[in-house]
């Protein structure tokens, strides 16, 4: 905190941040709550899930493939099958639309990052930082995933049926990550909101420096990180877990009531030291 004080005295003050008051952020209610049953976000493409097409990614670069997916959505295709992704990086990123996207093969680094809405199924493996910054939608990986799986996700369901690497769900601010196998060290590192379900074992320092959120572990925990503590599983948690695992199509043989629940000890909470602008990110 010593550093923070130093910043307050110099940089933040010179930028005028101390005078800033977070009033005026409330939106006026200028819409009728009974309106708009159109189920359509402005600017998104109106796609039909029954309209299906296939794309061969063998000779396409990542940008070409992503542009291709975008143009197919513009044409109303709601189901797109990508063949031969060949472990290329950054495929399927930035899709802000409802879509049924299937990758027949494996993805490289940063696959399906920053998505907001699509349902993605990957039949192979994925590299580092899969679904980073995901906002909404569902991603299912049939095999294993690399490190930083679901880094900084804000919402949606991210499912890996195999095992995942280290730092899964690092800095996550919402959503649900479900892992059928084991997870590496520092799972849930600095997580702020959301839920992680690991059906297998976890590595060292689980939930290290977590601010908030919940981690459910079905197997053994090698060690808990700083400020991560065990908590009691409620009946509501059990119902939710059963439902979630059914949706994820895994864990049918798991006794949900024996799952360990980990939450933040909240000793690291320090909201009163935050600058108003920093608090925007904390909400």
């Amino acid at each position: 905190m010593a550093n923070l004080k130093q910043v307050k005295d110099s940089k933040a003050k010179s930028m005028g941040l101390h005078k800033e008051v977070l009033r005026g952020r409330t939106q006026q209610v200028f819409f009728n709550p009974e309106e708009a049953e159109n189920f359509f976000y402005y600017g998104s493409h109106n796609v039909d899930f029954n309209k299906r097409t296939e794309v061969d990614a063998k000779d396409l670069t990542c940008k070409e493939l992503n542009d291709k997916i975008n143009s197919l959505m513009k044409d109303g295709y709601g189901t797109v099958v990508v063949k031969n992704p060949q472990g290329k990086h950054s495929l399927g990123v930035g899709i802000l639309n409802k879509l049924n996207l299937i990758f027949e093969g494996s993805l490289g680094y940063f696959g399906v990052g920053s998505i907001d809405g699509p349902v993605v199924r990957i039949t192979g493996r994925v590299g580092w930082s899969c679904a980073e910054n995901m906002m909404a939608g569902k991603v299912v990986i049939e095999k294993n995933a690399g490190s930083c799986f679901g880094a900084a996700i804000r919402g949606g369901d991210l499912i890996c049926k195999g095992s995942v690497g280290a730092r899964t769900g690092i800095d996550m601010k919402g959503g649900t990550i479900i892992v059928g196998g084991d997870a590496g060290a520092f799972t849930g590192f600095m997580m702020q909101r959301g839920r992680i379900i690991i059906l297998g074992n976890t590595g060292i320092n689980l939930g290290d420096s977590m601010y908030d959120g919940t981690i459910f572990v079905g197997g053994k925990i090698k060690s808990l990180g700083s400020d991560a503590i065990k908590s009691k599983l409620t009946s509501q948690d059990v119902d939710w877990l059963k439902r979630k695992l059914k949706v994820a199509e895994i864990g049918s043989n798991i006794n949900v009531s024996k799952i360990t629940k980990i939450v933040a000890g909240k000793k690291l909470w320090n909201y009163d030291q935050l600058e108003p602008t920093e608090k925007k990110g904390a909400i």
Partner: protein
Amino acid sequence: MAKKKKIKIKKSSRAKEKESAREKMIGQHIGYRYDVNLVPDYKKITPFLKKYIECMGWDDLNWLEDIHMGYEENRPAVFDRNANGWVTIPKKIKLPDNQQDRDMIARELLVKFQMSPNHPLVDLKKAYKKV
């Protein structure tokens, strides 16, 4: 919408109790005024939300699981991450005295607000969206 739920929520004194000196100074509450870890009760889901889930091709509330009814200046409100601001709940909506029901109403209103042609992002997208 939610016509059956006529029980008026008691004026929340909880919000005032928790107001710290720091919160008074900046005029806004810090952090959370509700249980962010509360998982949704799917028995309480509204027909509108059911339709929304079906339309999007999901199996459950998906990103809406993280949406809760909060408070802004002692009025019930829901945080819209797209607009980065709190959307206050219209006064004519009577809120039930149950967090799970209130959360479902918050989710429904937020989706309607985001899909409304009056959402602030509509103008922004018109001005700045890449073609």
